[in-house]
Structures are given as structure tokens and as C-alpha cells.
């Protein structure tokens, strides 16, 4: 599992809301903006739909970092889904950090449908951060331990 940092390509899972960030990422594409290909986008109806277990699941499947991104406050298609998400993830992120997960591995952002450039920048920045950090050895070790007994 351990690879040298030169050939390490971070695997980043992004849960993005259908109405803002997905459209923002789409805009980045249609605008022909070039950004790191390390992100795997999962489209969900709303950032409020993202159960913290989805984040755990992404780590269980080998993600090095997870991003949850939705509409800016006030812009939610469902009026207030992102406000609930904001509270939930404020605490859930604290919990993961308390358990010893590096803060770079659990990220949250607001990206609107007009912010294709912000999306491209964000992914580049995040990828660089996680590349510096290296693979999520802590969780990868759990995966290996599970494989060893099953």
C-alpha cells in the first residue's frame, strides 16, 4: 500500500449538490478549465443529504480525502438544507479531527453554479495538500486488517 510520495496520486471523493456545486464543476468543464483529475464526483440532491456515514464509507473504500460541497448559505434549492449540513459537519469534522484524522482529509466548501473557477482552484489546492500529506495510511491499515481476517 505504501508508495513513495512522488508517484502518489491522492484519491479524493467529492459529494456535491445537484444544484450548485455539480453545476459549478460542470461549468469548469464546459469552460475548458484544467484541474487535477484526482477528484471523484458523487452527485447528491443537497449537501443536507450527505450522511456522515457516506464520508466514513468513502474512507473505507480507500479515499485519501473527502470533500462535501453545496450551495452558499441562502442559495439552497431546498431553502435550508445547507444550513443543516453546516451544523452537522461542524461537529462531525470536529469528531474526526479528535480521532486523529488530519484536517486536510475532511473538507467542506460552498461552490455555486457560477463558480467554475473556484471549483477548479479548490480541487487543485486540495489535491496538492493531500499529496503533501501522503496516503491516508491510518484508514488504509484498517482496510488491510479487515482483509486479513475475511
Amino acid at each position, binding site marked *: 500500500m505504501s508508495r513513495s510520495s512522488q508517484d502518489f496520486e491522492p484519491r479524493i471523493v467529492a459529494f456535491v449538490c445537484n444544484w450548485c456545486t455539480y453545476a459549478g464543476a460542470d461549468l469548469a468543464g464546459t469552460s475548458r478549465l484544467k484541474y487535477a483529475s484526482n477528484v471523484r464526483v458523487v452527485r447528491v440532491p443537497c449537501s443536507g443529504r450527505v450522511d*456522515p*456515514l457516506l464520508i*466514513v*464509507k468513502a474512507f*473505507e473504500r480507500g479515499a485519501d480525502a473527502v470533500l462535501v460541497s453545496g450551495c452558499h*448559505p441562502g442559495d439552497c434549492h431546498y431553502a*435550508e438544507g445547507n*444550513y*443543516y449540513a*453546516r*451544523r*452537522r*459537519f*461542524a*461537529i*462531525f*469534522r*470536529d*469528531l*474526526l*479531527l*479528535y*480521532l*486523529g*484524522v*488530519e484536517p486536510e482529509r475532511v*473538507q*467542506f*466548501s*460552498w461552490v455555486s453554479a457560477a463558480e467554475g473557477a473556484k471549483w477548479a482552484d*479548490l480541487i487543485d489546492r486540495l489535491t496538492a495538500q493531500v499529496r503533501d500529506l501522503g496516503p491516508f495510511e*491510518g*484508514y488504509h*491499515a*484498517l*482496510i488491510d*486488517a*479487515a482483509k486479513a*481476517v*475475511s
Partner: protein
Amino acid sequence: MSTPEQELRERARELLEGDEVDVVVGYGQGNRPDRTTPVFVTAAAAADQLVLNPFCRNDLAAWLTRKDLRAKFPRMAIVAKEPDIRAVVVLIQETQIDPGAVRVIGVRIDRPGDPDSPCTVLPQTTLDELQQHLRDDFQPRALTAEQLGAVEKLEQLPPAERWAYWRKQFDKCLRCYACRSGCPMCYCDQCIAQMNQPQWLDTSAHPLGNMAWNITRAFHLAGRCINCGECERVCPVDIPLMALNRFLARQVRDQFDFQAGYDVEEYQPFASWKPDDNEDFIL
């Protein structure tokens, strides 16, 4: 002058004689002097089974949501220590129990588990009075700096050491779910740990499944945990679960100015929001 134990029995007798409840769930003598066991008193004549001593440890509020018990005894009274009264408050808040069908006999045990600890029956009988007591008298004694000491000690460690610490703790987990059984706030008919379509949590007691389960258990109690400490006490492998629960309780308190179980009228922190909630962490 009657002893607190006699007072407790008298209160139970009154409730049963007055046909106010169908059962009183309380503590009875266990199989050793330092153990108690839940007892279900259905007749006034049997109220003498009830005991009150520092070994009354279970959080009996966990029985209030048991469907089998409720089918038999729709109107229940429970003997509740101060944290357990908070559990009753949260259960009402979450519409799990009907406030009209539950009576609380509040007791105070100053130092649970210490044979010399004083035990008293609280004079308050209605839920309003009990909540007032909690806010005025109990809240200052809850989630103290002393209780948060273990949390702060862990926070001093660098992330890698914290991860190693929790990894070691969670690796011990047997997935016996005693923490869940003892918890008054874990009342789901079907726990997500048992769901298999889709299967969210690996059910085997291996490090991967244990991590997911322990993260889930802790987070499902964020803003709900009433700090009774039962999960940690019943854990057969001594995982310091309260160091997770208290951490989350502190975060919720500090960020949303909310503590569970003091006011039935209050909104759950995750079922509400404010426009100016902290978003420092959002890019």
C-alpha cells in the same frame, strides 16, 4: 423520620394505589450486595422490593422506549437519577414517549458506586419541577472541567498519536452492543448497525467495522447524550466511550449553546440552525 429508601417505596406505593401508573420501574437488590437489578413493581404491596443505594447504576429511562414493556404497561413510572431525568426530557423532546403517560421519581446519588455516597429522593414530582431542579441544581455539576479532563488530555496529543490511541481502543471492541443496550438514547427499532440492504456498517468485529461503528455510535449521540456514563460502564473491554461523548457534548455546547435534556421545549441542535452558525471550516 423515614429513610430515603422508605420514602422511595412510599412514593411508588402512592402511584400504584392511586392507579396513576401500571408499573414502577426501579432498582431491586441484585445478586451481590454491590449490585442492583431492574425490578418492575406492578402492585403497591410489592413496593418494598425497591432499593435506593449508591449501586443503583442502570439508566432505567432505557426501559421507557421498550415496546414489549409499553404494550403491557402503557403508563409507566421510573426511578430516575438526575442524568436519567435528562434522558426522559430528551425522549419527550424527540416524541418517543408521551409526557402524560410517564411519571418520574427523581433521586439523587451524589457519588454513584461509592458505598458511602448519600442518596436522596428529590422532592419535585412534576416534569416541570424536575426540569427546573436540573437547570438550577444539576447543570452546574454536569460536564465539569474534571469530567472533561480526559478529553483535554487527548486533545494535547498530535493527530497521529490520537489516531493510534483510538485505533487501539476500537480494536478491542467486540461489537456486543452493550453500549447501545444500556443507552437510553439508543432506541431505534432497527439500528443502522443491523441494516444489510444497504449494509452501512461492517458487522464483523474487525478494525474497519469497529471504527465505523464507534464513529457512528458517537455521532448519533452528538447533542443527545445526557452524560449518564452507562455505555462506558457496561463496556466489557473498557473503551473510554465517555471521552467521545463528552467531547461531542462540549462541542455542541460551545458552538450551539445547547445541552441536551434540560428543556423539553428546546429544539434539537441538528434539527435547527441559525443564519450565523460557525462556518470557519468551510472553504
